[in-house]
C-alpha cells in the first residue's frame, strides 16, 4: 500500500486574543484504498483538518504531504494544480451551480485540467452512470432531491479519479434514508478503489466505516488504526 496523504505534527493556530489552536500536533496517515471517518463534535477542529488535508488552508506548523510531496512550500498556483488533479471534495451544501445541467456540473470537476469539453462530458457521463444517475444528465440541480444532488456532487469529486476524496459532512443536509444511501455509495466507490475520508459528527455513520479517527479539541484522541 502507498501513502496518499500524510500529516506530521500539524498545528493550526488562528490569531486572536487569545489565539485559537484549532489543531495541535495532529499526525495522520491515509493509505491508498482506505475509507475512514474523521469524527468529532463541532469545534473539535475536524473542518480545519479537512481544509488542511485539502490544501485549502496552510498549517501553521508541521508538514502535510500529498502523494509523498511536501505541500507547505508550494505556491498557490501549485496547490491549485494539486487540487485539480489529485483531490476531490464533497461538501455538506453540495455547491452545485444552479444554471448548469447535472452533466456539466460533474464535468466541472475536470474544468481546471484544460481537457476538451467533449472529453470532460464523456467522463462526467460515465461517472454519473457509476453513481446511478445516468438518467439525470440533462436535469438542472434544482430539479433533483437533496440525496440526488449530493450524488451529483460525489460524481464531480470522483470524475477526475483523485488520489483521495475529502467529504465534509456529506450527509449533514440529508434525511436519514438519503444519508444512509450516500454512505452506501461511498462504500461502493471505496470498494471500487477510491480512497475516501469522511468528516462527520455522526457517531453511527463513523462506526459503520472501516477506520475511525476521533478528534477532540484539535487533537486526535482515538485512531482505530493507531498510526
Amino acid at each position, binding site marked *: 500500500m502507498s501513502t496518499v496523504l500524510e500529516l506530521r505534527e500539524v498545528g493550526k493556530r488562528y490569531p486572536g486574543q487569545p489565539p485559537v489552536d484549532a489543531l495541535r500536533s495532529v499526525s495522520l496517515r491515509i493509505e491508498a484504498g482506505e475509507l475512514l471517518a474523521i469524527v468529532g463534535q463541532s469545534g473539535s477542529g475536524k473542518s480545519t483538518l479537512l481544509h488542511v488535508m485539502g490544501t485549502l488552508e496552510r498549517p501553521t506548523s508541521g508538514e502535510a504531504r500529498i502523494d509523498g510531496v511536501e505541500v507547505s512550500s508550494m505556491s498557490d498556483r501549485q496547490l491549485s494544480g494539486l487540487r485539480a488533479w489529485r483531490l476531490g471534495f464533497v461538501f455538506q451544501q453540495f455547491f452545485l451551480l444552479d444554471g448548469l445541467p447535472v452533466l456539466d456540473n460533474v464535468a466541472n470537476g475536470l474544468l481546471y485540467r484544460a481537457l476538451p469539453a467533449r472529453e470532460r462530458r464523456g467522463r462526467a457521463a460515465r461517472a454519473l452512470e457509476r453513481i446511478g444517475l445516468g438518467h439525470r444528465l440533462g436535469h438542472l440541480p434544482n430539479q433533483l432531491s437533496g440525496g440526488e444532488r449530493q450524488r451529483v456532487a460525489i460524481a*464531480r469529486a470522483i470524475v477526475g479519479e483523485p488520489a483521495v476524496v475529502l467529504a465534509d459532512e456529506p450527509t449533514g443536509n440529508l434525511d436519514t434514508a438519503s444519508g444512509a444511501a450516500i454512505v452506501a455509495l461511498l462504500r461502493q466507490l471505496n470498494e471500487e478503489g477510491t480512497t475516501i475520508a469522511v468528516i462527520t459528527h455522526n457517531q453511527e455513520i463513523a462506526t459503520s466505516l472501516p477506520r475511525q479517527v476521533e478528534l477532540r479539541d484539535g487533537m486526535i484522541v482515538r485512531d482505530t488504526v493507531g498510526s
Partner: protein
Amino acid sequence: MKSRLLLSDVLRDGSLGLRARRLRASLSALGIAIGVAAIVGVLGISASSQADLLAQLDRLGTNLLTVAPGQHLGGGQAYLPQTAPGMIRRVGPVLRVSATGVVPGVNVFKTDKVPQYQTGGISVRATDLDLPGTLGASVAHGVFLNTATARYPAVVLGASVAQYLGITDVRDPIEILIGGRWFAVVGILAPIALAPELDRSVFVGYPAAEQYLGFDGEFTSVYLRTDPAQVTDVLAVLARTASPAHPEEVAVSRPSDALAARAAAQAAYSTLFVGLGAVALLVGGVGIANVMFVSVLERRSEIGLRRALGATRGHVGIQFLAESALLSLLGGAVGVAIGAGVTIAYASTHHWTVVVPPVAVWGGLASALVLGVVAGLYPALRAARLAPVVALRTV
C-alpha cells in the same frame, strides 16, 4: 499537475453568471447600451447629414463665384465699373457670366391696398437672361424672362418672395405693384441654394428696368462659373479684372464655401453630443462595476467551490473579468443596433442617404469592451483574493 483553464471555458463560465441572472444582466447592460446608442446615433446622423450637404455641394458645383462692390477705403459704398461683366467674360477659364443690379428705392407690393411701409424687404433686380443658367437655378412655375418679356413690365419672383406674397403658381394672370407700376408675373424660381439672397428678389429685364423703374445700369452682383479645375486661379485675378483701377473695392466670394463650412460646423456640433454619450457610457460602466461587486458577494460559495476544484486566483479573477466584459459588450452591441436604427429612421425621414460610420460602430463596441474590463477589474481582484476557506464558510 498544473491547473489550466481553456479560453473557451473562460467565455462559457463568464456567460454563465449572466444567463443565470438575465433581468439583472440586461438592466445593468442598459446603461452601456444607451451611451453607445447615443454616440452611434449622433455620429450616424451627423455623417448622414454631412453626406447630404456634400452631395448637395457636388450637385450645385463649387465653381460658382460672385463679384460684388465692396467698400471705399474712406468708407461708403463702392461701385463696380460698367465694364466689369464684359472684362470677366474675357478671362479664359470663365464659362458663363451673369450680372444683376439692384434697382434702388423701389418697393414691391402685391396690391395697392398694402400700406407703403410694409415693403417686406424685397429687392428688385435688373437681370440678364442667362441668370438661371449661370446659377443652375430652375424655374418652379411659368418661364424665365426672354428677349421679349425683358422689355415689358414682366417680372419673375424669387422663391421666398412668391411665398411671402402668397403666389403659388402663374396659371392665372397675376400682376404685382413694383415702383408704383403693375408688372405681370411670368414665372417663379425654385430656391437657389448657392445664392439665397436672390430668393428674396424679383427680376425684371434690363430694358424694362431702365424704362419703367429708372435703373441706371449699376451692377451690384456678378455671378460666374469657371472651369472647376481653375477656380483658385480665377479667384486670384477676379478683383483686378472687375475693377482694374480699384481692385481693393471689389468683394469676391465663393458661395459653396458657406455650405462646406456648414458641413464642418455640423461635425463640431456633434462632438458635444458624443461627449454627452460618453458621460452616459461612463455612468453605465459604474453600474456594471456595482453589479459585479454584488455578484462577487453573492457567489462566494461558487468561488470557494472553484478554488476546491483547482482554480487558481487568476482563474477566478479572469472569470469575473470575462463576465463584466461580456456584459458590457452585450450592452455595446445593443447600443450599436439602436444607434444605427435611429440613424436610419432619422436619415430616411430627411431623405438623406444613410451613413453609419464604421468608426462609430467599432469605436462603440471597443469602448464598451474597455469599459467592461475596467469596471470589472476591482470586483475581479476581490474575487481572486478571497481565501478558499473564507469563501466556503458562507451560506
